[in-house]
């Protein structure tokens, strides 16, 4: 058939026509703008509104930043230098940035918090990225003790003896594990560690200090402040609240009615009250509930409260992850004959935690932002310092420069965390979308 057709056709094109250029309105910037800015009359109005908004609110900021004064001793001097032009007085930052970062930490000892920052990065890296050498985890394990010693100073034997308690407990656990079964080795390890901490640690640390004195100058909690205190409270809270949150979540879905009741009560109570009231309890009421003459460091109390607060929220997030797990996973673990803790460790938790990563990181971000609340109980974090600086006669009337700096510091930390969580979610995704 087609052969016949071909014979009757007079002309057959053997080469393709070169494609002609698309019409001008369908290419390049014009097309992009037509599609993304002016696709309908509604979008035209929205675009114009957005441009008006940017013009009125963001464009005036440019000269403010460009003309900014970085060297001056007071706001008055800034205004003299600016001579009527618009401009920020960033001199307050060049004068006080160390204070905003480290609080009232002694200037000669700044290397300690700086080393702590660097060590934190090294310690967090192997947890965050699993393609790094596992040996880095040693730095992570030492970090809690190193952080306490670097920041608060004092005799190194004090910190080492506390760490030794963990070591002794572990050795005792391993030793008992060879002879005994079940939970008993764990209890033996715990008992050994507690006995060491309560009765032997003090004398041993004191003795070692008198034989081989070595330590850093002590820095009191009162001298901590600024970004440093946010980081200390935030990192401690994050590290401590995850395990507590997991336990609470497991308690809440357990089939032991009394355990479940206690966990539900705790979670609902903590989630029902504002953090600030818990901080008030820590700063005002804790003395009522402790035996006479026992006092806790204020920073420690805050860490405890922030941890409890965050762990209740984490428990709910993890409970969501546990609930989202198909029931077959639990049944399969049972069918394999795994014990409760084995099933949790090998089957349930890895999957449940993976599902709840976004929620967990959101909780961490919330916890980190909540550290700014400590200004209410007399700790000079960045906002507390900003208040103090604004009360200073030299800088009275300054606000945006300080708030932008503080906001930027928080933003970088929190945005970084959320980007990391999105990356992790993509990496761990096992389905094919």
């Amino acid at each position, binding site marked *: 058939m087609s052969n016949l057709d071909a014979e009757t056709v007079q002309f057959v094109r053997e080469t393709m026509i070169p494609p002609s250029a698309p019409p001008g309105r369908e290419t390049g910037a014009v097309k992009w703008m037509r599609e*993304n*800015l002016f*696709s309908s009359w509604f*979008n035209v109005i*929205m*675009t114009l509104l*957005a*441009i008006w*908004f*940017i013009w009125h609110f963001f464009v005036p900021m440019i000269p403010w930043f460009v003309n900014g004064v970085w060297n001056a001793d007071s706001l008055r001097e800034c205004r003299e230098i600016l001579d009527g032009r618009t401009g920020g007085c960033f001199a307050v930052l060049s004068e006080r940035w160390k204070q905003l970062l480290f609080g009232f930490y002694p200037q000669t000892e700044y290397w300690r918090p700086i080393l702590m920052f660097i060590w934190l990065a090294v310690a967090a890296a192997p947890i965050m990225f699993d393609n790094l050498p596992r040996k880095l985890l040693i730095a992570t394990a030492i970090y809690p003790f190193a952080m306490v010693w670097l920041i608060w100073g004092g005799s190194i034997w004090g910190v080492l003896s506390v760490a030794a308690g963990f070591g002794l407990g572990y050795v005792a656990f391993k030793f008992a594990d060879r002879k005994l079964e*079940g*939970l008993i080795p764990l209890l033996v390890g715990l008992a050994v560690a507690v006995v060491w901490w309560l009765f032997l640690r003090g004398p041993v640390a004191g003795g070692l200090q008198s034989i081989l004195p070595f330590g850093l100058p002590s820095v009191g909690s009162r001298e901590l402040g600024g970004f440093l205190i946010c980081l200390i409270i935030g990192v401690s809270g994050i590290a401590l609240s995850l395990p507590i949150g997991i336990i609470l979540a497991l308690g809440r879905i357990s*089939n*032991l009615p*009394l*355990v479940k009741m*206690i966990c539900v009560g705790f979670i*609902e*109570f903590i989630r*029902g*009250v*504002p*953090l*600030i*009231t818990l901080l*008030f*309890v820590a700063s*005002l*009421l804790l*003395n*009522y*509930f*402790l*035996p*006479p003459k026992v006092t806790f460091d204020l920073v420690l109390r805050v860490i405890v409260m922030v941890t409890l607060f965050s762990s209740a929220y984490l428990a709910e997030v993890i409970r969501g992850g546990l609930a989202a797990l198909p029931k077959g996973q639990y049944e399969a673990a*049972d069918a394999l*004959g*795994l*014990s*409760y803790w084995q*099933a949790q460790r090998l089957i349930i938790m890895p999957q449940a935690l993976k599902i709840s990563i976004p929620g967990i990181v959101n909780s961490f*971000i919330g916890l980190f*932002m*909540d550290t*700014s*609340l400590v*200004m*209410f109980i007399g700790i000079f974090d960045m*906002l507390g310092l*900003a208040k103090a600086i604004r009360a200073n006669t030299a800088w009275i*009337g300054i*606000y*945006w420069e300080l*708030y932008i700096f*503080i*906001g930027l510091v*928080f*933003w970088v930390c929190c*945005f970084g965390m*959320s980007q990391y969580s999105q990356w992790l979610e993509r990496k761990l995704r096992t389905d094919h979308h």
Partner: protein
Amino acid sequence: MTAATDPDDSSGFKLSQLIYDTRYRAITIQVLTVLAVGWMAWELIGNLMSNLAARGKDVSFGFLLNPANYDITESLIPFSSTDTNLRATFVGLLNTLLVAFLGCILALIIGITAGVLRLSNNWIVAKLMTVYVEAFRNIPILLWIIAVFALLTEATPAPSAFRGDDPTSTMKLWDTVAITNRGTYIPRPIFEPGMGLVAIAFVLSIIGAIFFVRWSKKRFLETGKTLPNFWIALAIVFGVTALVFLVMGMPVSWSLPALTGFNFQGGLQINNPFLALWFALSLFTGAFIAEIVRGGILSVSKGQTEAAFALGMRPSKTMNLVILPQALRVIIPPIISQFLNLTKNSSLALAIGYVDLRGTIGGTTMNVTGRELECVILMMAIYLVISLIISSAMNLYNASVKLKER
């Protein structure tokens, strides 16, 4: 959960079964947990008693009925310093509820707008909304509250700037609104006698509109004929109310703020602490709601829209009958918990001096009476009750929209 070892019936009960037999282990663990918690509670209460005794204090809520001896500048109900602490607490509670209620409404409006616009195909608007959401979600609410308050108090003109023949500042919106560093003044409506009838007409017309919508739905199910329900209901409510309003001779007049002497008089003064708290809470929570709304809309798969179109539904019907019912199931529970967060965050009013629940019972009353324990317990209890009410409302809603699995 674990592989239970069968108990050996012949030898009877052995002590080790308390640990190794899953039937008894559950009891062992629970008894131990309760003992531990009970012991802790016992210790804490014992310490509390001995500490209170050592300081010569007792636990008593009698101070609530004593005169408060302080003034509250912002109060929804009349309050003077001779009123009781209990009334002061109630004033604080009302202020908390006021800012929380208005904050929830504004946050919802901002959040839905930003969430929908972030999905818009308008590049510049979508990017602007992304900037808004990421900026507010990643900076502490406390900083926003303080910054907005600083903006309102330091970047706005003093009332004196409005004075003279050539004032440096002028009132906004055709001379009805004055924004000053002492607060914002807006017109205040003064209701005259006939206004009660208008209000009654308004309520009755809403009831009428509800009945109309019910009737229309019933008619639709029986005959398949549709009416523009929304517009007719709107017309009923506003038509009737406006008619009564006109018939009664417009029984409302406005008290406008005007500069007399050194300050504005007349109108309604909205204090800066309240405004700052309201805006900051709404903008902060709005950013979270925007993300929830965006996630909810994205969670409805595209196939649903396509299926609705294939059935011949118009876009508006598709939205109302297919997308929204599914998206709302995802959206509403987290939004309610954001409302809960907003309510709890309103306690940060402390930073800018808005007198809320924390400012009365947890602030001045506590300092005046020196009863920290009672005040903090009472404050926590009130917040807890508010939270429990909101979360039980959420549970009711969740139960009602739960997928019916058969």
